[in-house]
């Protein structure tokens, strides 16, 4: 089912029928890029074909978007790196502020990009009116607060996965175009202004294990694939289970090497944030946080050596 006219009532309020504007392709591309990470193959092949991306297999799609990198804002902005909670509530609040009922997965990238496209399309349909101004304002808030607060890091992580790299690059390019057109405020997004404390040098093992899977605590994204690579690199076994469980096992086997690898991982993310294709105040914040985490982890590695 399509979603092009979700905001038609808003445009009809001012007596202007919703109609495709000059930027129809712009909105469609954004909506399509979002849909790709939501719609499992083969249903999404018609979209990837239109975009010119290689069609994913079911396994590839599941590996990236279900298992390793679920594209939810709450995972990246929440204190526990989990679905729901404050990270999801903040996004849902924006839907409500717009007078819309938030869907169950309001913080899913597909929903965010679809909403962005809806706002853009609805704005096109009521050019010159107050409603247009309000819609543009809402779209700008969505971009600055709910996309640029976490998406650059997410796309950087996705870009490291072979299957998703093309999609990630194209999505980053589309978002960069939006940032170029809309600009970003100098102020950090609220989610980062009110972010939980970074990893601390005095944190115990439990706190360390809680923080490592939570990007907003560490400044980096740590996937199952990363852990498998780490195990291979430092010569420890990676036990099957959630990341916290696997990390505990790695730390128990070789704490020094594991902590050292994690510190290096954090430094790689400092670079990814500083030199990524999407720049902004949020990226500086993420880089600083990753740097802070790197320092803590290096210190811990030294202490257990």
């Amino acid at each position, binding site marked *: *089912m*399509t*979603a*092009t*006219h*979700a905001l*038609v*009532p808003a445009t*009809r309020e001012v*007596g*202007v*029928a*919703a*109609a*495709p504007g000059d930027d*129809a*392709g*712009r*909105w*469609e*591309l954004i*909506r*399509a890029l*979002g*849909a790709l990470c*939501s*719609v499992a193959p083969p*249903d*999404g092949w*018609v*979209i990837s*074909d*239109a*975009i*010119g991306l290689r069609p994913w297999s079911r396994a590839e799609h599941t590996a990236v978007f279900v298992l390793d990198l679920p594209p939810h804002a709450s995972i990246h902005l929440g204190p526990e790196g989990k679905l729901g909670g404050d990270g999801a509530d903040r996004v849902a609040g924006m839907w*409500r502020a717009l007078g*819309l*009922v938030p*869907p169950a997965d309001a913080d*899913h990238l*597909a*929903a965010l990009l*679809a*909403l962005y496209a*809806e706002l853009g399309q609805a704005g096109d349909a009521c050019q010159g009116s107050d409603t247009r101004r309000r819609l543009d304002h809402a779209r700008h808030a969505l971009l600055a607060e709910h996309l640029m607060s976490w998406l650059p890091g997410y796309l950087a992580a996705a870009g490291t996965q072979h299957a998703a790299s093309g999609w990630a690059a*194209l999505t980053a*390019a*589309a978002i*960069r*175009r939006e*940032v*170029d057109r809309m*600009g*970003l*405020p*100098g102020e950090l997004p609220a989610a980062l202004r009110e972010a939980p404390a970074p990893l601390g040098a005095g944190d115990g093992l439990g706190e360390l294990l809680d923080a490592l899977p939570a990007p907003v605590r560490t400044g980096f994204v740590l996937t199952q694939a990363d852990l498998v690579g780490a195990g291979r690199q430092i010569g420890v076994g990676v036990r099957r289970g959630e990341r916290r469980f696997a990390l505990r096992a790695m730390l128990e086997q070789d704490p020094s090497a594991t902590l050292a690898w994690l510190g290096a991982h954090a430094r790689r993310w400092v670079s990814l944030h500083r030199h990524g*294709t*999407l*720049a*902004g105040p949020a990226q500086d914040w993420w880089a600083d946080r990753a740097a802070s985490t790197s320092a803590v982890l290096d210190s811990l590695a030294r202490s257990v050596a």
Partner: protein
Amino acid sequence: MPRHRTPHQPTPDLGALGERVSAARAAVEARGETFYQGASKTFLAGFPPPQRWDDWVELDSRAWPERVEHHSMLVPTTCFNCESACGLLAYVDRETLQVRKFEGNPAHPGSRGRNCAKGPSTINQVTDPDRILYPLRRAGERGEGKWERVSWDEALDALAARLRAAIVEGRHNEIMIHIGRPGEDGFTERVLASWGVDGHNSHTNVCSSGGRTGFQFWTGIDRPSPDHANAKVIYLISSHLETGHYFNPHAQRITEARAKGAKVIVLDTRLSNTATHADYWLSPQPGSEAAINLAVARHIITTGRVNWDFVRDWWNWQEYMEARHPDGPQGFEAFQAALAEEYDGYSFELAAAESGIDAAILAEMAEVVAGAGTAFSCHSWRSAAASNLGGWQVSRTVFFLAALLGAVATPGGTFPNAYNKYVPRPIHTPPHPKVWQELSWPLEFPLAQNELSFLLPHFLKDGRGRLDTYFTRVYNPVWTNPDGLSWMEVLTDTDKVGCYVALTPTWNESAYFADWGLPMGHASERHDTHSYEQYDGQWVGFRQPVLRAARERLGETVTDTREVNPGEVWEENELYIELSWRIDPDGSLGIRRYYESKDRPGEKLTVDEYYGWMFEHSVPGLPEAAAAEGLSALQYMRRYGAFEITKYQGALYAGEVPPAELEDIHVTPTGRVYTAAPKPESDNIGPLGAPPPDDEGRRPVGVLVDGTVRRGFPTPSGRLELYSSTIAAWGWPEHALPGYIRSHVHPDELAPDQMVLLSTFRLPTQIHTRSANSKWLDELSHTNPVWIHPSDAARLGVRRTGDLVRVSTDIGYFVAKAWITEGIRPGVVACSHHMGRWKLTGHDQVSPGGMMATVDLGHGAAGWSMHARKRVGPYSSADPDTRRIWWSDTGVHQNLTMPVHPDPISGMHCWHQAVRVTPARPGDSHGDIAVDTEKSREVYRQWMARTRPAGTYSPDSTRRPAWLMRPLKPAAETFSLPGATGTRR
């Protein structure tokens, strides 16, 4: 504001890529396929966008794997299956120009594209093999089942002659149109007014008048409009409205509120659908609800949560003090103390004793209510208010809670419905009739909210009058009312009812006894406008014959809806225009002028002009919105089906009265303000109370609050009336305050072997007989077992669910299946009123298995008996689905066994029954009924003895307080009591 910009990097040609995706999507969707698979990410459901309503393509699922396209025109209309008036979209096949299906209309502000099962099932009613397609005239005796097809001209000429004769001979009161659920705003009333006839009769006194009465005496307006979506606490006395009446528009907003953390409290003796979702489900002893409300009120008062600023400004507390505490101090502080004292007796312990609910639970719930502040939405409609002697006090005490909290017309609060309703002024407005219909508005019930419709058979038997021509309009009085066999007795008596005309889409238990069966349209076959309170905003909806609108989109001109409807099915608008012209062909009676064109003087008014004028002149903003799309206002409504006029009405009562309306004002000591300035014309003619003028004839214009004249409420005092001087003056001073009246089924009134039968609850997938000719709905719900608690079942010897029980009332009994469940309070049984359709043996005009049992109806010394000869089953018809009927049950028609119980104040029929439940006796069969209508006469007389007639109690020699709302209010002079010489103000 400092802005960051990303460093320049090479990017792909995103513009070209976007165009390519757009083109791909267009190509996919043009094939009727879906580009974005899966659930929508931006809202719950997707709808066809309006710009594609002219040619919407879908693939035929039954043709799979072939790709067969269906091209449809999507034409909006409004559901006719309940009062919610939800928007529908008819899918009109572009090749056959037939309706394929109905789905929701996303442009409708109330329902927002969502429907309950009754909406899409309209297609069943349109294709029902048993519908009446042509005008029919009785060929044998009344009720014999013999009919002959006649032309509309024959029917209209015959009826016009009868009606003209009655009008010319001054027998206006022998004409009556009895409507069921109106589903429109005032057309029928204006027809009667144009004929000079006070003949509007409605089903409201078996429906909602008890609920309305409580709200009317508080606010001057007889319906509430809860803003559920923004409430913190939602308080529902019974779920009835939320699972039946405004089920869909309210339910979806309650769901939204719950998602935001709102608490839902449901008082319902039965575990309803809504109760299953409630935070608090309280199952009170039936009739004790007002006692619970008053205990909550006391808690609000004693814990200091009353919004005293609101109370000081907007309650008529000064009148209360003058009336009840004339000798003490009259200040507000004295009132605060008096109020606390007045309700001090309503402790949780008292409420617990009355309701059977633990006092601690009541206290916990009351604390939730007290914490709601001004975001407290509440509703009481049928159920308790419609079931108990004094049930109207249930809604009066519910609104008491909102009034204490100041949650009146606040976000999340409860509004008077008039704030959220818009009835556009029509092209012609005939004057008030100059007669008073005693058969509907008898002197015994001066405060009745609506017509005493369910007493009509008894009044006719009393010899209070006769009816020359009696219309029922999409209404089934034999089936819907209590004591239906008394209805049958008068409908078959030509001395009492000279001519009975059934305006109906389908056969029903009343139409069998008609002289004329005239086919009326379903939701997609008729014009109507309507506006209902479903959120804080105002909208107007439009029901239309969708095939007429579809053909007009194709460039055709349709001037008579019969051209496009099935057979010769018509609609009332055009019918009444034509009939009125035939009653008054030369205009000499002064009737025809109300059906003449303004554009073409002397010619007949068309529905296009009628609605075109209304939409163009009386709906603010609609012409402009239409013009922005290059449409006329009528074209816009034919295109979208609804228009939202306002949102966020807010506290209109607090609005300042403009200086232009303040001329030679008079201010009473309590701050009521009267003005000599004429009332400004309003295009919204929605019903309100009409407070009387002052002694010099100035009209009430507002109330003085802190030195400013504000609108106030349409009550005599201009404020919310804690104390009703009207109730006190008309003989009921003991009930002038929100209070608790013990029900006729209070435990003290029951014999040891009696239980309460709760008979008013609705099945969300059915609505009386209106929805009964829908195969989908009948498949969902086709039986109405008697709910009985396991402890009662064990005590009574009812062993298993499905066992037959005999339920005996004061006038007879019915036999039904038992459903043993903990979803009902011990000591109470319940049976829905939606089932038990029947047709008489020999009525072969109805299909042999047509979703109603074939019954033998006998009459002997013991009265009437009904026995099912044949139940439903598969049968052959033009519809192949009738071969697939897998059920045989039709339930039982329990209402036949219930005597009339008119509440002496509200006039509402008090539905609850004191019954004896026993295992069925040998020979009893499911659906059996026995009724002694002589006993029903006795019960009628007993209840009439409770009344305090206007002839004795009227304070001003009038029949009824003129300020109270009344459908089709007659002219002022008719209010005087017979023989009285005084003039009503």
